């Protein structure tokens, strides 16, 4: 069925202009129009940069024949004189859903997750639908077309807004006077993507952004393999994906962070996506530019928050307030940085507000030429259709606007929008502009009248003796009809005026009084007096509006400029080396080039900033082996194994918890995947370089880790889920046996040199078997801990770390023998059945048995007090202070295989250090400075200054918002931003 439709559509398109040639005609004789149409004396924007004054546009058969000043006009031409008027190419929106109904979630009483696909013959994941084609669903929507025509659009590329792969779009002209055979310019134009699942399927996978990313990658690999003919079965999705390869690939990222994620995928597979932006690109313009992508920008600049209520407005974050202020400058910033972009009406409630938003961007410094490019030549080029649309060069479709002047001026009237040579009149351009001030006398009284507004909706203001009269005006076909109230405002009586507009724009007619008497009425337009004032205002408008400065990150506590590495000399500190030297009293430490340069007495360095650390303690930075801060998703729970996903894909560099962790002396963390699955996802090991971008946080040459999990979470014991294997600890073992056996076979096949289907999940698990990737396994009870060690031994590798490991103390001897480390909570227990035997002495017993022990947080609050959590090992089990301190520094560094760089104070290691006001494990200690590679990312004194700045900046922005409201601008209600507290069992919120 689809194929047939496609064939029909193709025919329509190719033969569009000749359709009549072979269509039977039964309602008259065949007529062929051979005439030309010329538009003369106009200012013609052939392209945004090629502007012709007093030019002529000649069109025929819906296309431009010629445009220029020396156009020869054939005899059979109808001519329209456009003196004083302008012609622009009409606009193009390449991110439109025009005429394509958005799929809806089917009504379903189904409960519980669905793991398999709903269809056969297609890809295994329902959310991958490259086979979908907008053309199959396209129905010309004349109501919407009218709105778009009014907003200046002539052509849109429309797509199906559903799923991760959304299939191909369709390029359509908004021609109201023809059928689809003419309108459809290209039935398959562009392939659309997003990270969002289809609403039509309940299939669980992917349940997170990182899952969507992994799915895209695997799909590309599978398509390649399929294309080479290796598959024994049919897959219409992969076939379509391969067929769509040469279309422009458009990714609906919708914000800067997702744009970078999409681009990263594209880079891996040699695809340069055109990316739907989110308006926040200016925040990290360098990274945005580095994608080399072209962007499609929505222009839905948000309204000011309604901040009148002082209590509620406290809940607004500086980041949100700044976004309101800064967003309109986004197009300017992109243009200045040479990033190509097109505008879209996407995200706007109605195209009506499109023009005013674009003009807002212009007020904030975007050049009109760039704005016009973003609406004409750029989208045309992105679609590979430059010769057909977006300009008024010869051969292009005759898609153009006739305006009274500059299209980006609020006073300009858009008269006509021509698409494929067919006219839509928006405002009658022969209408005389009668707007202005008038004076007239009637029956001895003198009146002043002002006519303003748009010509189609004129408004009148009439005063007499300084008093305003109620009045209404109607203006059409050169006649005005005005009614106004009489002097006695207590009576509902009216004077009516009926006048013809003469060639001088004077009003000449009669007045009819309430008593029926008629008098002559004559009003002339007064010369403009306030021109100077208006010019001044125009000048003022030309000065671009400014915005508050961007910080890194662009939220509270962000840096104006990224702090730099310094040469620092700490004098006279108590130094916790974590090395054989132990704790050194009254010792100096020199930091240089991001490294610990020297530890000793009486060190001097002429270039160093000296910090008096008398009475203070200097330690290595705290390392949290188990963290879930700074990530935008934690669990991919759609499958019981998710080795293909990686937290490195979803690092959130703006998370305020990064800053708060720095304030607690933390410098490195492992962001682990959650514990939803026996085989979880890959970790990100990062340094908390607040202000840097996500990619710069990740360790260079980072050790490779993956999260495994055991027990109640992977069995899904604590919520209503009975459909997924495994449901018992018995099943968990067999799941591992299955995956490791398969990965082993996969790896053998791969190494044999024979063809194989590249499978990211298997690649990752094979890395474990090849000892290239380490496991950190969420674990509680002794039986399962023992089990996993035995499974690993069967496959000749070792588990690297058991994390949580609350019953580690029961099997500490076995752990020591296996050689696995234990990264545990200091004192958590009793929150679920499997932690009923958890004891705070766990760390001590494991340590005493020879296990490398770390204390971790799994919690954004506890992580900022890990020094205190380490101190609990002194209380519970009598661990020495030096050893207890290693539980949160050197030992996690060892477990993460980064102890060659961090974890102790040793010459040559990274200068990741903390200066404490007191003994680092004292409850009374505060981190005063937290330094990573010589850069001071947290400083207690600077923090105080920043608090004042934040207060000031917020007050300023509140004032600006109040002003906006007082000006009568729209506002939006206050929302309270919440940061989810992420733990192991955190699941991404249902994508909506």
């Amino acid at each position, binding site marked *: 069925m689809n194929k047939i439709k496609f064939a029909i559509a193709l025919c329509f398109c190719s033969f569009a202009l000749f359709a009549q040639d072979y269509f039977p005609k039964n309602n008259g004789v065949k007529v062929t129009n051979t005439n030309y149409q010329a538009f003369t004396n106009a200012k013609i924007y052939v392209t945004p940069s090629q502007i012709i004054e007093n030019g002529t546009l000649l069109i025929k058969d819906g296309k431009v024949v010629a445009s220029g000043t020396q156009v020869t006009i054939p005899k059979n031409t109808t001519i329209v004189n456009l003196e004083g008027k302008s012609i622009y190419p009409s606009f193009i929106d390449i991110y439109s859903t025009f005429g394509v109904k958005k799929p809806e979630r089917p009504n379903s009483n189904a409960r519980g997750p669905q793991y398999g696909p709903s269809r056969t013959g297609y890809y295994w994941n329902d959310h991958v639908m490259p086979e979908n084609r907008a053309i199959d669903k396209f129905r010309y929507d004349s109501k919407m077309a009218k709105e778009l025509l009014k907003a200046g659009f002539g052509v849109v590329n429309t797509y199906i807004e559903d799923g991760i792969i959304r299939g191909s779009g369709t390029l359509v002209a908004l021609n109201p006077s023809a059928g689809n055979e003419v309108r459809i310019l290209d039935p398959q134009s562009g392939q659309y993507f997003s990270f969002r699942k289809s609403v039509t399927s309940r299939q669980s996978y992917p349940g997170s952004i990182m899952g969507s990313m992994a799915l895209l990658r695997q799909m590309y690999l599978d398509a390649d393999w399929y294309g080479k003919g290796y598959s024994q079965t049919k897959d219409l999705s992969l076939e379509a994906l391969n067929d769509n390869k040469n279309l422009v690939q458009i990714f609906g990222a919708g914000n800067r962070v997702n744009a970078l994620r999409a681009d990263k995928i594209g880079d891996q597979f040699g695809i340069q996506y055109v990316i739907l932006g989110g308006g926040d690109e200016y925040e990290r313009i360098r990274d945005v530019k580095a994608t080399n992508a072209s962007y499609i920008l929505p222009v839905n600049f948000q309204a000011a928050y309604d901040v009148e209520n002082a*209590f509620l407005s406290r809940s607004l974050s500086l980041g949100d307030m700044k976004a309101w202020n800064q967003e309109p400058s986004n197009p300017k910033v992109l243009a200045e940085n040479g990033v190509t972009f097109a505008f879209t009406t996407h995200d706007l409630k109605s195209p009506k507000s499109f023009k005013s938003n674009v003009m807002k961007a212009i007020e904030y410094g975007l050049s009109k030429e760039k704005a016009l490019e973003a609406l004409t030549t750029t989208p045309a080029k992105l679609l590979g259709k430059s010769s057909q649309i977006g300009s008024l060069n010869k051969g292009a479709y005759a898609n153009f606007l006739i305006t009274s002047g500059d299209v980006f001026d609020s006073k300009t009237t858009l008269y006509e929008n021509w698409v494929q040579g067919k006219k839509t009149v928006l405002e009658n351009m022969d209408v005389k502009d009668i707007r202005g001030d008038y004076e007239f006398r009637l029956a001895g009284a003198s009146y002043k009248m002002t006519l303003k507004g748009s010509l189609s909706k004129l408004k009148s203001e009439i005063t007499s003796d300084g008093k305003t009269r109620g009045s209404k005006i109607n203006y059409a076909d050169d006649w005005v009809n005005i009614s106004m109230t009489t002097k006695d405002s207590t009576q509902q009586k009216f004077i009516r005026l009926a006048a013809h507009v003469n060639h001088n724009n004077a009003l000449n007619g009669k007045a009819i009084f309430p008593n029926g008497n008629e008098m002559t009425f004559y009003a002339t337009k007064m010369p403009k007096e306030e021109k100077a004032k208006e010019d001044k205002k125009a000048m003022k408008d030309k000065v671009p509006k400014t915005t508050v400065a961007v910080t890194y990150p662009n939220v509270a506590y962000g840096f104006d400029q990224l702090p730099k590495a310094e040469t620092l000399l700490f004098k006279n500190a108590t130094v916790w080396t974590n090395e054989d030297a132990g704790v050194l009293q009254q010792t100096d430490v020199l930091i240089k080039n991001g490294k610990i340069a020297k530890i000793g007495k009486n060190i001097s360095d002429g270039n160093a900033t000296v910090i008096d650390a008398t009475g203070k303690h200097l330690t290595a930075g705290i390392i949290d082996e188990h963290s879930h801060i700074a990530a935008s998703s934690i669990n991919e729970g759609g499958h019981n194994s998710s080795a293909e996903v990686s937290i490195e894909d979803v690092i959130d560099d703006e998370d305020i918890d990064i800053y708060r962790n720095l304030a607690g002396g933390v410098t490195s963390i492992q962001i682990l995947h959650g514990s939803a699955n026996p085989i979880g996802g890959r970790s990100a090991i990062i340094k908390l370089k607040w202000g840097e971008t996500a990619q710069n946080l990740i360790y260079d040459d980072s050790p490779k880790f993956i999260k495994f999990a055991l027990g109640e979470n992977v069995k899904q014991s604590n919520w209503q889920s009975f459909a997924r294997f495994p449901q018992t600890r018995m099943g968990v073992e067999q799941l591992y046996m299955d995956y490791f056996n398969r990965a082993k076979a996969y790896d053998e096949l791969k190494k044999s040199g024979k063809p194989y289907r590249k499978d990211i999940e298997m690649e990752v698990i094979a890395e474990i078997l090849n000892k290239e990737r380490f496991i950190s396994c969420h674990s509680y009870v002794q039986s399962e801990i023992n089990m996993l060690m035995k499974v690993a031994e069967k496959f000749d590798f070792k588990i690297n770390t058991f994390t949580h490991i609350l019953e580690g103390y029961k099997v500490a001897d076995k752990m020591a023998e296996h050689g696995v480390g234990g990264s545990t909570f200091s004192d958590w227990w009793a929150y679920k059945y499997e932690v009923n035997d958890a004891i705070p002495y766990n760390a001590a017993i494991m340590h005493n048995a020879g296990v490398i022990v770390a204390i971790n947080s799994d919690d954004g609050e506890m992580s900022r007090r890990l020094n205190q959590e380490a101190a609990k090992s002194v209380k519970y089990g009598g661990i020495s202070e030096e050893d207890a301190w290693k539980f949160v520094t050197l030992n996690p560094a060892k477990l993460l295989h980064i102890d060659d760089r961090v974890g102790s104070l040793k010459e040559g290691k990274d200068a990741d250090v903390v200066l404490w006001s007191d003994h680092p494990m004292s409850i009374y200690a505060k981190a005063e400075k937290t330094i990573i590679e010589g850069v001071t990312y947290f400083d207690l004194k600077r923090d105080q200054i920043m608090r004042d700045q934040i207060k000031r900046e917020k007050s300023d922005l509140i004032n600006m918002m109040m002003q906006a409201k007082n000006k009568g601008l729209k506002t939006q209600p206050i929302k309270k*931003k919440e940061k989810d507290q992420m733990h192991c069992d955190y699941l991404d919120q249902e994508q909506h």
Partner: protein
Amino acid sequence: MKTIYIKTIVVFLMSFSLGYAQQTPAPTQDKAVAITGATAHLGNGKVINNSLIIFENGKLTQVLDGTTVRVDMSKMDVINANGKHVYPGFIVPNSTLGLVEIGAVRATDDDSELGTWNPHIRSLIAYNAESKIVESMRPNGVLIGQITPRGGRISGTSSIVQFDAWNWEDAVIKEDDGIHMNWPNSFSRGRWWLGEDPAMKVNKNYDNQVTQIADYFNGAKAYMQSDKAIKNLPFEATNGLFDGSKTLYIHVDDEKGITDAVNFSKVHNVKSTVIVGGYEAYKVADMLKKHNIPVLLQRVHSRPSQSDDDYDMPFKLAKLLTDKGVTVALETSGQMERMNSRNLPFYAGTTVAHGLTKEQALQLITLNPAKILGIDENYGSLEAGKSATLFISEGDALDMRTNIITHAFIDGRLISLDTHQTELWERYSEKLKPKKK
């Protein structure tokens, strides 16, 4: 269906096996005890170095400077605590200890009853004196708690218990001390299951919800004037609020909510009102001081509630309020609140790093909560005539490294410091002890 049934049985059996563990409660004090030489932190801000502390029949008789007095101690048990520290037993208000044993096992959860208006629901009834979590408080010095129900607009009625008892009758210090009410929030969350944006938005029902509370109180007062021929249990339960025998604990965090709540309690002639949570109480500290309204301050070890807040806001709130003259005690509700309650001394310790003196911080978990809960006649400080509820620590009990408790007494009874956890520690330390070759 069958699986669910079997699971239910398993859960039931498991919960049954969980309940037995508490150490045997100590017998009544039958001999006077003297603690000599310790640094005594009285809980009222004072410290006596080299103190002499004597108690008999459960009551403190002497709390003195040991360098200046001589007492015949021949008939007493004498504990030489030279170099050690003595503290009043710590008090944890607004706690669900004993109401829930294992958070994820529903069969063990008894903290939240069905319904919106539950003043008649009494926590004491469900308090499990033999909870393994309760006993784990004692080795850290937490000896008394206010057991408080959760949920609804009015959650129910709390009672105050001590942590060494055979059963709830045995445990109770003050029965039905107060009624707990959750003040409406200025923000509410969209109901995502109805397709609404789940983000926090201004609660448009706030005024309506406040009016409902007023209606409820007016209804209760009107009922008191009636002949009460037909009993209204919830209204009966509120009576104490108006005659002063019960305190109204209003759980509220935001500045406007606190102001509204205080005005509300004044208008309705509630005799004793306490703010619980109070994240923004520091903004209205003068008003709280003026109306003499104390605050049970939210967990010190928590994250700032808003992204732009000072990173140390939860750490320094106690200081901000104390400096303004508001009576502050620390509470521990929130995630994993029961097991975390043993960290109460460290919450107090953290407030010292952020401005308070050590003795001020100590007051936040001793005399101040005793005053706020109305048990200060007997508890909260080391003063002659008060209950001998105290403990000896090797060092500073507010610092985890030195909070090492050797003796603890409740009403003069020397209680066990063993727990399910210390037993496992001993058992497995023994198992894993390196064998002598």
